[in-house]
Each structure stands twice: as structure tokens, then as C-alpha cells.
């Protein structure tokens, strides 16, 4: 679109309206995060002030309790050290990395097969995956609990990992299926003419060119595992909890003790990796969201 010529003719009023709208939206989107990060370095009477929220900005009570300094790390100390949040961070790292790696391994193989098959049943598998994708996770969880108790595999990380991988498969298959469709068929077919078997063609020809699609899909697999609450809160024992269920368990016990700030600090700690993710992979996230939309 010839952007320059179009914007030339835009009346001033409209321009002001557009800029104002964008500014309001950006504030709406970003301010809650900035406010919570800022507030996590205050004490509770400041961040949850009964008098005025200026206290949260100036840190009135924080100064009083802290020899004049208006910032305190006590929330972080309480969460990470006293309440052992680092354990949950460690568990989250194990779960997210395993889920991403296993999902992508299964998903690339399956997605490639679906993209190259052209048979009737491949289409039905995709439709079935769409239905599975729509299932609320908690309904599946209520089906897992009893069998897992019986088999005595409830509460440990590997169970949650494999469940999250399975829940993630429908989405991964769809994404990678549409990505492999965009790689020309001739590429692997010519390798097969040269004497490769299907699997060799996949390994030697497709794997080297598939990384952009795999990275994008991997980001979303990571997000699913990282953001999950329904599965991990029901399937993990208290010792093995990941970050999100741990934060929700803080709220039950911590709020009574008047230490909401532990939860605030934990929430900010859990948000930081997501910030970094968006910062570095903004382009991949955007292209991933649109790839599914434009092609599917």
C-alpha cells in the first residue's frame, strides 16, 4: 500500500484520534505490568494502600520499615527463599523444556506425514485433532485423575509432561502440517528419485529446511506448557509443583498471613521469562499466529 501518499491526505483530526487511541491501548496493555513490577519492590501497606495509591508510587511505608529506602526486596526474599519458589522455577524449567522437545519431535513426524499423504484418513485425523483442540483441558483432567491414582503415577513430573505433550499435539500437528505444505513436494520427491527412502529424504532434505517452522511452533508449545494451570495444578503433588500452581497455592496460605507481597514477587518473577520471549521472538510469534490463520 502506498503509505506515504495515503497519510498525506489524512486530516489532522483523524491523526490525533488514531494516535490517542494507540496511546490509550498501549497504556492499557502495558501499565498493569509496569505497575506490578514497581509495586513488587514495596511493602504491603504501600502496594495495597488503604489511604492513597500515591503511597505505592512514593513508598511511604516502605521507607518507614526500611531505614529510608523506598525499595525493598523482602517480597522476593520471602517468595524465593522462605517459600522455596526456586523449586517451582526448576520444575517449570524441566516441564517446559521436555514438553517442547517431545511435542516437536512427535509433531514434525506427524505433521510431515499429514502434509504429504493426501489420503482421506489424513484429512479426518486433522478434523479429529481440531475437535481435540477444542476440549477444555479440565474435562480431560477429570478423566485422568482416577486412572492415575490407580496406576500410582499421580503427582510426578513425567506424568504431567506426557499429558501436556498429548494436549499440545493437535495444535502442533495443525501448525506443522500447514508449514510442511509450504515446502515444495519436489524437494523430498527428487531425493527419493535419487534413491532415498522416505525417512532418509525427511532426514536429509526436510530437516535442514524446517527450522523456521519448528521454532515458531516450539514457541507456542513452550507457552502452552508454561501457562498451563488446569493440568499442573491437578496432576502434581505439592513438592513437584510448577510456578503457576505454586503461585495459586501462595494465595491460599499467604493471604492469611498478610504476605501477599510474596505472591506479587512470584508473579513478577514468572512474568520476566515471557517478557524476554516476546522481546526476542516477536517476529516468530506474529508469523506463527498469522500462519495458522492465513493458510488454515
Amino acid at each position, binding site marked *: 500500500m502506498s503509505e506515504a501518499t495515503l497519510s498525506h491526505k489524512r486530516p489532522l483530526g483523524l491523526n490525533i484520534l488514531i494516535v490517542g487511541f494507540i496511546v490509550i491501548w498501549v497504556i492499557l496493555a502495558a501499565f498493569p*505490568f509496569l505497575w506490578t513490577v514497581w509495586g513488587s519492590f514495596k511493602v504491603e501497606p504501600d502496594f495495597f494502600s488503604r489511604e492513597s495509591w500515591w503511597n505505592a508510587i512514593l513508598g511511604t511505608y516502605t521507607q518507614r520499615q526500611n531505614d529510608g529506602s523506598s525499595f525493598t526486596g523482602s517480597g522476593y526474599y520471602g517468595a524465593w527463599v522462605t517459600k522455596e519458589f526456586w523449586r517451582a522455577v526448576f520444575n517449570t524449567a524441566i516441564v517446559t523444556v521436555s514438553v517442547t522437545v517431545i511435542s516437536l519431535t512427535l509433531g514434525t513426524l506427524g505433521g510431515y506425514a499429514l502434509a504429504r499423504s493426501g489420503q482421506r484418513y489424513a484429512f479426518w485425523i486433522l478434523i479429529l485433532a*481440531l475437535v481435540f483442540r*477444542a476440549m477444555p483441558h479440565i474435562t480431560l483432567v477429570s478423566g485422568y485423575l482416577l486412572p492415575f491414582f490407580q496406576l500410582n503415577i499421580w503427582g510426578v513430573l513425567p506424568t504431567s509432561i506426557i499429558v501436556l505433550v498429548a494436549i499440545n499435539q493437535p495444535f502442533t500437528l495443525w501448525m506443522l502440517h500447514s508449514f510442511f505444505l509450504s515446502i515444495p513436494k519436489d524437494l523430498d520427491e527428487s531425493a527419493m528419485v535419487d534413491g532415498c527412502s522416505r525417512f532418509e529424504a525427511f532426514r536429509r532434505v526436510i530437516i535442514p529446511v524446517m527450522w523456521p517452522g519448528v521454532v515458531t511452533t516450539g514457541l507456542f508449545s513452550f507457552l502452552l506448557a508454561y501457562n498451563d494451570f488446569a493440568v499442573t495444578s491437578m496432576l502434581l503433588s505439592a513438592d513437584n509443583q510448577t510456578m*503457576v500452581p505454586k503461585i495459586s497455592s501462595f494465595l491460599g496460605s499467604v493471604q492469611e498471613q498478610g504476605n501477599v507481597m510474596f505472591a506479587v514477587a512470584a508473579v513478577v518473577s514468572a512474568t520476566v521469562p515471557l517478557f524476554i520471549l516476546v522481546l526476542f521472538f516477536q517476529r516468530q510469534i506474529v508469523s506463527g499466529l498469522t500462519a495458522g490463520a492465513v493458510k488454515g
Partner: protein
Amino acid sequence: MPHKTFFAFILPSLIAMVLFIALPIVSVVVQSFHVEHGRILVEVESCQPFGGCTKETRVDTAAMAALKAEQPMGQFNGFGTYLNRGHLAVNEIGAILANNNGFGDVVTRIYNLPFYKALSFTLVFCFVVTPLAMALGFAIALAVNTLPKVTKGPVIFFSLLPMIITPLIGSLILYWMIQPNGIIGASLRHIFSDPTLSLRQSPQLTWFSLLFYGVWTNAPFSFVVFYAGLQTVPADTLESAMIDGASRWERIRYIVIPHLAPLATFVALVQLMDNFRVFEPIVGFSAEANATSLSWMIFNDLAGDAQLFGSAGATSVLTIIGVVILLMPVLVRTWREFNHKVV
């Protein structure tokens, strides 16, 4: 691709889906037809040297444990759980319809039944948040598209945050701000000069804040998809419309919107699916007194000390039926298109 190779490639993925998605659905259905064992009571006579003998009824824990080991799912209950007060509440609805004071009374009394309360919030959340979030996303996409290139990147960065954030964490962050002692809650009290105003106390305000959260977290997805769609609007068509004298609004209405319509169907489908499982915001906002959802009901049954598998199973089956109804238009259309292609 030969069948054998195809299945060799897809088998691991297929096994994972069958074992952990298809079988749990079967397991949920079976569970929903069972109910927890009733208590086995025994009469115990305890005699004391001076007090004489008293008879007491106690729960026989040993017999209970034996029965539970034998039949872990509980006893068969048929459709009993589906029809009881906690779910479809057939008898209660019959009573309400037989004896009531007008339409308003019927609605309030049905709303007070737990399943219908959850269902109504779930549906309202689905069908209010989805169109509003799509409209907001479209507006942001149009606005961002006019910005100079330098500012586009940062604006997109901040816009992605509400979507990418963990739902429970995002709702907690907003919840802390709208509490009476948080910044938004306190400011609202100040603006309306009402010192008792609290977004938690009235059901309407709780619903409103949950819906606000829903739009906040759903809008970025529509924005990103529509923004990408705007890049593919044919410039020639826009230009010729301008030459023909179409105004800005007319160009959006007659060129851009029709061009984005297929994308809008996709976005609506994905967001309806995701909003139907609304759950984390209710936990994050501690809103269960005023707003519950189907997913929250299942969670509540399972999270308590006495895990009610039968009740959770019945709600799950009803939820799955809801999902299938929601997907029906898409499935029917795909089925028709597919048959069309083959013929």
C-alpha cells in the same frame, strides 16, 4: 505416500492423542455414570464401668476402604448424577415451571441452580468477549497500520503482552489493581465518591471486570491476525476506490472488511473455543461467589477433599457436548466442502 510409511510417521503422535485425549473422554463418560459409595454405618456398643452402655452409630472405615478398593469408581448411578440438583436439575426446574410468579421469577430461580449459573456465565463470556475483542483488535490493527515504521515494533511488542501472559497471572495482576485498596479500585471510589464501592461485591461488577479481563487478553490475537491480513489488502483495489471517490469509511466497509472476512471466521472460531473453557480468571479474581463457569465447576469438584469424580464427570460430559455444539457449524461446513471436493 504409502499407508505403511504414513502410519510409521504419525503413530507416536496418534498414540499420545488416543491415550491422553480420547481415552480420558471415555473415562469421563464412565465416571459420570457412577457415584461415590454411600457410608457404611455400624452400631457400636460402648460400655463404661459406671455410665452403663450406650449405642453409637459410626462410619465403618475398614469396610469403606475395602469397598473402595474393590470398586474404585463407586457404585453405578445411571443418569442420576446428570439429573440431580447440581447438574441439569430436572425436578427443580419442573417445580419452578409448575409454580412461579411470572417469567422473571423463573429466570432468577433457574439461574440460582449451580449448573445453569455456570452455563450462563460461560455463554455470556463466550459471546460477549469474542465479538468485542475482535472489534477492538480490528480497530487497533487499523490504527497501527497507519503508524510510521519506527513506532510499529514497540507498539506490537506491548500489544502482545496481555495475550502471551499466563491467564492466572494476568488475572491476578488486574485483580490486585481493581481491589478497593489497589490503584483502579481506589480511583473508582474517588471518581464516583462512593467509599463502599467494590468491584467484588456486586455480581454485575464482578461480571463486568471478568469480561473486561477477557477483552483485554483476547484483543491482541485478533489484532495480530487482522494486522497481517491488512498487509495483503490489494493496493490497486484501494486506489481505484479512491479514484471513484470512496471515503475512508467506505473503503474500510466495502474493501477491507470483505477482504478480512475469512480471517474473521478463523479468529472467531479459535476465540470461541478458548473462551468456552474460561476458568483461570475466576480463580484469579476469586469471583466464584458471583460468577462460575463450567470448567470452574469441574475444578471445584476435583479440588475439594472429597473428590467428586461422578459429579465432575457429568459436568465434563455436558461441557464436551457444549463444545461439540459450538463446533457443529464448522464441522458441517468442512464435511460439505470435503464431499464437494471428492465428487
